Structures are given as C-alpha cells and as structure tokens.
C-alpha cells in the first residue's frame, strides 16, 4: 500500500539493534445511533433485561427475513460525507460466515466487496496543534453480535442477543499512523466527527465505539512488515498501551532473529500484554457471498444531496474558521472544537468582542470549574451571555483582569450577571485619578525609605503599585496607577 508519510525519526522506537518505525492502521466500529436494529424492529439500547430486545429476525428463526433500516443507511452516508469520502450509490450486503454462540445466524451480514462508502480523509490534530492526514479506506454497514457472559456458571456460557443485529459502521483507515499517540488522536478526531454528525454517540465505555488496531514494525526505509491485529480495544489509554506493548513484542521477536506471524491478538489491560486468539485463526476463511435475502442497495443522488445539505459544520472547518475569523491559536481552536457545545458557547459569547479573551475565559476559568464540578458545558451555571458581559466590562475598563476573576467567582456562585455583581459589590475599577492620587500621596508620605530606594532602583516601583492596589481594594486602574506613580516619584 502506498506510503504517503515521510519517516519521522522522533517517532522511532529504539530497539537493541537500532531504531524501528511503527505502522498503524485502525478499524473503528461505531454503533449507529438508531432506535431500532439494522435489519429488524427490535430496540437498540443499553440496560434492558436479557433477550428483551430481540426480534425473531435477530434470533435467526427459520423463515425470518431482514429488512434494511433506512435511518441507518442515512447515518452511514452522513458519516461518509463527514469523512469527505466517496459515497457509493450502489452497494451490496454479503454474508460473512463463521460459527460462534453470539451469532445465531451463523453469519454476520456485512458489506465486503461493495461498501456503501469508499475512500476519504480525516485531518487529525496533534497535541501540539500541528495536523496530519489519515486516509480512509472505506466505511461499511454491518451487524453487531450478541454478548456472552462467562461468569454465571462454571461450565456454561450465557447468551444475551440484545446487541445482536445492532447497526455498526466499520470505518477502516489506511496504515497512516506512526505512533500510539497518533492512533489515539485519530480515534479522538473520528469520535468528534461522529458526535458532530450525530450518527454515533461515541460512548467508549458502553462499547458504542471500539477499535481494532493493526500493528506492524519495520526498519526505517524498508517495506511494510507483517501485521498483527489487536481486537476490540475500547479506551484511548488502552489503544496507546496495546500498541506500545505489541510494537515492543514484535521488535523483540525480530531482533532475536524471529518472524512475525500474522494473527489476531487481544490486549489484556491487567497483565499489560497482548496475547494470541488462536481459536479465531482457522475461522478466518469467511466464505463471503452476496446475501440472497437482500437486494442491492441503491441510493438516489437526490437523497445524498439532501443529506449533504443537512450536514453541520465539520470540526476541521470550524477549527480553520475559529483561527481565521477570531484569530485564535491552533491550540485554543482545537480545545474549543473538540466539544461541539463548547464551540457553540464560545461563538455565542465571542461575536462582536475580543474573541481571544473570550476563548481564554472559556478554555481556562470556565473549563477548569466545569471539570472540577464534573459538569458539561450545557450545564454551566454561567451562560455565554455572562462571559460576554464580563469581557465587555474588561474592555470598557470597568474592572481589571484581577477583579474579573473575583467577579467570575460570584457569577459562578449564582449572584447574577457580571454587571450586577460589580454593582452590588462595588467592584468598579477606580479610574478617578483624584482618588488614586490621594492614595498615592498617602503612601509616599508614609514611606520615605521606599521613596529613596525607588529613585536608585526604578524597578522597585512594583512595591508602590502593590500598596496602591491594597489601599484601593484592588479596584484602581493599573495603567493609571503606574502613570501617576511615575510622575510623582520622578522616575
């Protein structure tokens, strides 16, 4: 496969015999946020009693026929458009054949040869604000399997088919990632896009988004090595850990003169190692063939256009717009767009005022308090209009930035709008030079020693500024204080 990324030595892993490059490709399974299943009218959801959300289609009773869920098709198309990918107007469902107790049909309905979505691209942002591209190979629709419970009996497994038949979008990337951090950043970006689009809720804890990671290593500059696939990793931390442990394992084998066997492995977070899933090996002959119960899926161009017109602004477009229109740094823009609601909140407050300052308040003071209180942005006790008002007060010179923090604290505690708090608590900045001069005169008169010192060492004026602020309860305008002090002290 075409290797589009130049080697980056800073990402190499050092082995005993020299550096190695890690090559990563991901298959992400995203559960479609639908009410009912891909091919049946049984409910999709979390927490129902065993086999409560199972139709006779899901249980694979003889004679039952699958009927495609239009909404799921729409979500796949929407996601494809969000990945800037080719939408295939004609696609097909195939049977992937294998036996396992969580799969009553004996096959999974999937799309093999003709997926609904073809090649696309995702722009991923790294922590340092730089971006890189991950090419998408394809996206296809398929059924999820049921769930096995092993701890209810020592000799038997219990089967719950509630999840069986739930619609999944399998999103396959090309091997475009070169470190565990990049892989995690890609999944985060993908998750953000899915949440923006509303096609998947992105809940990793519930398993609604999970990743299979393909890992291989090579000497820099050489051809691709043999890969191993780590199945079903369901947290950002585990994705990184699994990759690091698997890359190390492969490097050790190769440095000992061994050979990598292409196989499926599982990551065990407790033992912090990957191990082979031998039982899956011989099942790898899936004997795909077109599902005779389903006709080809054809999409009207008008429907695709309609879905396209309904797309929200995508995260990377939003990031570029925030940087261009509001002059935000890549970092601030990245922090804001990672959460659609936070981005909206920022925009509501930023329109027509100092946007950078608004971004600072949203990403620092507000975000810190929200995190501490375990609150989402839409649960914030401080509405966007109050952040806007606070920034206006700063712009108008009514309060200093130090006082602004105090005002924010009171606003957070429910004392009303920033203007009301400033009014009620008398926090208005003193710009009345007469009052400031009076305070300065008093301080100069009381501290002749300091006055002599500051003439020798003008930097010591800071001490005077501090005293004036103390005398005025922090409300004196710092610029005015500086100016008056300098003229009175003759420095």
């Amino acid at each position, binding site marked *: 496969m075409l290797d589009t990324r130049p080697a980056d030595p800073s990402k190499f892993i050092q082995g005993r015999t020299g550096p190695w490059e890690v090559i990563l490709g991901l298959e992400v399974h995203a559960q479609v946020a639908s009410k*009912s299943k891909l091919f049946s009218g049984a409910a999709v959801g979390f927490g129902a009693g065993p*086999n*409560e959300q*199972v139709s006779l289609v899901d249980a694979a009773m003889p004679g039952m026929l699958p009927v495609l*869920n239009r909404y799921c098709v729409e979500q796949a198309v929407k996601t494809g458009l969000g990945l800037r990918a080719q939408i295939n107007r004609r696609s097909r469902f195939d049977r992937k054949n294998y036996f396992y107790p969580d799969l009553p049909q004996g096959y999974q309905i999937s799309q093999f040869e003709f997926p609904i979505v073809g090649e696309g691209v995702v722009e991923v942002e790294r922590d340092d604000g730089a971006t890189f591209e991950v090419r998408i190979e394809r996206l296809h629709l398929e059924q999820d399997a049921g769930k096995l419970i092993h701890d*209810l009996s020592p000799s*038997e497994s*219990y089967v719950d088919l509630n999840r069986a038949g739930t619609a999944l979008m399998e999103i396959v990337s090309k091997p475009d990632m070169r470190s565990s951090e990049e892989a995690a950043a890609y999944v985060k970006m993908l998750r953000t896009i899915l949440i923006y689009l509303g096609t998947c809720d992105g809940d990793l804890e519930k398993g609604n988004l999970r990743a299979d990671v393909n890992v291989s290593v090579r000497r820099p500059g050489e051809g691709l090595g043999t890969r191993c696939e780590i199945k079903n990793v369901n947290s950002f931390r585990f994705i990184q850990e699994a990759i690091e442990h698997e890359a190390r394992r492969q490097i050790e084998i190769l440095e000992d003169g061994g050979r990598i066997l292409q196989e499926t492995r599982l990551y065990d977070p407790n033992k912090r190692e990957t191990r082979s899933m031998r039982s899956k090996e011989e099942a790898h002959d899936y004997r795909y063939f077109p599902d005779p119960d389903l006709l080809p*899926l054809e999409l009207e161009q008008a429907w695709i256009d309609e879905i396209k017109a309904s797309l929200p602004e995508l995260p990377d477009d939003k990031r570029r717009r925030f940087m261009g229109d509001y002059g935000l740094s890549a970092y601030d823009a990245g922090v804001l767009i990672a959460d659609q609601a936070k981005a909206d909140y920022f925009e509501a407050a930023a329109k027509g005022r100092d946007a950078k300052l608004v971004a600072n308040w949203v990403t620092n003071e507000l975000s810190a308090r929200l995190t501490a209180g375990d609150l989402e942005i839409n649960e914030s006790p401080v509405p966007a209009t109050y952040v806007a008002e606070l920034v206006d007060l700063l712009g108008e010179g009514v309060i200093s930035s130090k006082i602004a923090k105090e005002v924010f604290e009171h606003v957070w505690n429910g004392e009303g709008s920033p203007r009301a708090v400033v009014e009620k608590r008398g926090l208005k900045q003193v710009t009345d030079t007469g009052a400031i001069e009076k305070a300065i005169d008093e301080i100069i008169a009381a501290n002749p020693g300091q006055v002599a010192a500051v003439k020798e060492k003008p930097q010591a004026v800071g001490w005077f500024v501090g005293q004036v602020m103390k005398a005025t309860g922090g409300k004196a305008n710092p610029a005015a204080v500086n100016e008056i002090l300098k003229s009175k002290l003759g420095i």
Partner: protein
Amino acid sequence: MAIDVDTVRRVAHLARIATPEARLEPLAAELNGIMQWIEQLGEVDTDGVEPMTSCVATTTPMRDDVVTAGGEPGRVLSNAPKSADNFFVVPKVVE
C-alpha cells in the same frame, strides 16, 4: 474447477457438518458433478453484462427506524435446548 478430498474435508469442517472419512471421496465426486453442471453457464456470452446477485431487477426495500419487535424473551427462547433467567445457555466458550 475440480474439488478434491481435502477441500471437501475443509468445507465440511467450516460448515460444522460431521463427515466420516469414507464419505469424503464420494462427496467430492458428487460436488464435481454439480460444478460441471453449473459450468455449462460458461457457454453463455456474458461480456459487458453486469453480474446479478438476485433474479429480481429491483433494489432493496427499506423500513423506517421504529421499534416494532422485542419484549418477548419467552418466545425467543422457546426453542432453546437450554435456557436460564432469560439467557440462552450453551457449553462454555472462552477465549
């Protein structure tokens, strides 16, 4: 396309159909007969004809995303050889 004994053994295993060794040879012969019969289709000139996966020239119907089934674990489990607490129960399978 000729089907040999090894292929029959492999396909039987993948399909979980118990097949005694003695049956493999005769099955291979039968399957080869079926394949030869199918290969007669090769006589038809299909150049430029798109392959069909069904004999109905129409596309798949779709349904709306509404919940119309479920909530009847008793019925779902009614044919299960073994069940408990609304679960199917099978011999232990562990990775």
